[in-house]
């Protein structure tokens, strides 16, 4: 399994998927820099870090996952390399499981970069404008925990996007699904039904109580099951 996983990682070399994984958190960093800079007074570190995680969970994560899964899948769909991969003496579920692990790894990388780039952006803004230097200490552990919860709650959405991107040779169905899901999540943020909407679960986890718990349980639990089902389905189906 490890060799298949390393192969997936090596495929990312000079790929658009890797470029996206690096670029998306930087956009949040750029936003954080200007957002902090527009104030005249200092604010607490936690405000900037939580804002950054909120942006990530609310909009950037679903859009990035949509693009990322499509790009990773197109690495095989575009040169039609599924036939080659599936004809090798390697169990097919390992090929798809490794791809999934690669996608999850990139999402984790983006989450970590999100935190790091936000920290760097706020520091840079504070260096250029000392009056806004944040108060207190950045609580990296709490922010990391929040990011981890966002990731767990987003698992169901990741599973759906992963399955759609791998299943269809065209990137259009996966992209339409991702854009549509993100649109409804943003447009109907406070809707009660949003608790059960996969694209909204990542942001729901930032609240408290029922919404938070449901997002974690449904997103993480159903998401894990959906990921396993996706791998089984993809490895068993015929690619015509």
């Amino acid at each position, binding site marked *: 399994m490890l*060799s298949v996983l390393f192969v997936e990682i090596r*495929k990312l070399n000079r790929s658009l998927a890797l470029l996206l994984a690096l670029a998306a958190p930087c956009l949040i960093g750029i936003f954080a820099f200007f957002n902090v800079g527009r104030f005249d007074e200092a604010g607490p570190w936690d405000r900037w870090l939580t804002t950054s995680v909120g942006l990530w969970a609310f909009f950037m994560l679903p859009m990035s996952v949509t693009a990322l899964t499509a790009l990773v899948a197109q690495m095989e769909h575009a040169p*039609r390399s599924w*036939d*080659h991969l599936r*004809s*090798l*003496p390697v169990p097919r579920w390992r090929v798809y499981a490794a791809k999934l692990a690669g996608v999850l790894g990139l999402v984790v990388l983006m989450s970590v970069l999100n935190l790091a780039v936000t920290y760097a952006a706020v520091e840079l803004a504070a260096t250029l404008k000392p009056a806004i230097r944040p108060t207190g200490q950045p609580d990296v552990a709490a922010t990391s925990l929040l990011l981890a919860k966002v990731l767990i709650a987003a698992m169901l959405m990741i599973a759906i996007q992963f399955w759609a991107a791998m299943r269809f040779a065209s990137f259009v169905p996966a992209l339409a699904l991702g854009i549509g899901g993100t649109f409804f999540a943003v447009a109907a943020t406070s809707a009660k039904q949003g608790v059960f909407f996969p694209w909204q679960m990542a942001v729901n986890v930032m609240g408290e109580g029922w919404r938070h718990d449901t997002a974690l349980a449904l997103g993480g639990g159903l998401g894990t099951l959906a990921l396993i089902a996706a791998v089984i389905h993809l490895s068993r189906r*015929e690619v015509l």
Partner: protein
Amino acid sequence: MHAIETRDLTRRFGSRVAVDTVSMTVPQGAVYGFLGRNGAGKTTTLKMLLGLLKPTAGVACVAGVDVARARLAAARQTGALLEAHGLYANLTGRENLDLTRSLLGLPRAEVDRVLEVVEMTADAARRVGGYSLGMRQRLGLARAMLGAPPVLILDEPTNGLDPDGIADMRRFLKTLTERTGATVLLSSHLLGEIEQTATHVGILSEGRLVLEGELSRLKADLAPEIGLRIDDAGRARAVLETHDLTFADQSDGLTLRLRPGQDHEAVTARINRDLVLAGVAVFALAPRARSLEGIYRAVTAAPQAESQGTS
């Protein structure tokens, strides 16, 4: 044990029968030309041999292993170059090969070996995105040869290549068995390609295997022809009517078809003598062996005529 064997192999897509009870045998060490027009069922057959499609009925075996029952064991005996090469444009040629090498658990030196076989060592550090189609095909061939599998399945390896690329690929294919010791199953719709490279041939028409055998024997078994250029085709026909031949008129003369087994040299000499004695001017008289194209046309004509008649 044959390198490849299928028994009544069938694959349906809905109501359409793509491959219809195909029983083919590829002897070890052969270069087996798998011929048929586009849509004849060649790729579907190859995909079943590679375990990419499941047969609706019948059995496909590679090196004695039933592909449907033991895909991984069969895949270890097989290297494949498919119509879509499936190379990663963002990686170099060497990196592309190294990915498959890792998946197969082979030593690093194996990449150098196959690069040398396809004469791509000098270009291995370049990104595949900058390769010509011919270079991609050669790299695909190198990838198929990783681990020296005893059976190589090549699906239309000259498709889309320019004349130089085709000549290059033909040169590789001709010596492939000598260099690797592998049995090669080579699908193509280009008759000339197969005629120049294959030792055995199987012809697929509308999903059915209509002819199979050793190419040289097939050619020998089929009657040779004699091309005749004369001044008066009508008189020539009259003179040669007593001979056991069939005739086909051409714009500049006659084509005579001998029966299988006839001594064509003796018949040629007799025809020449009789025509000259009868006062027919003979400008040219050329015996010629039947080409693969002739064989192909003959065996694929029947199913086509049948299907036209029933439509």
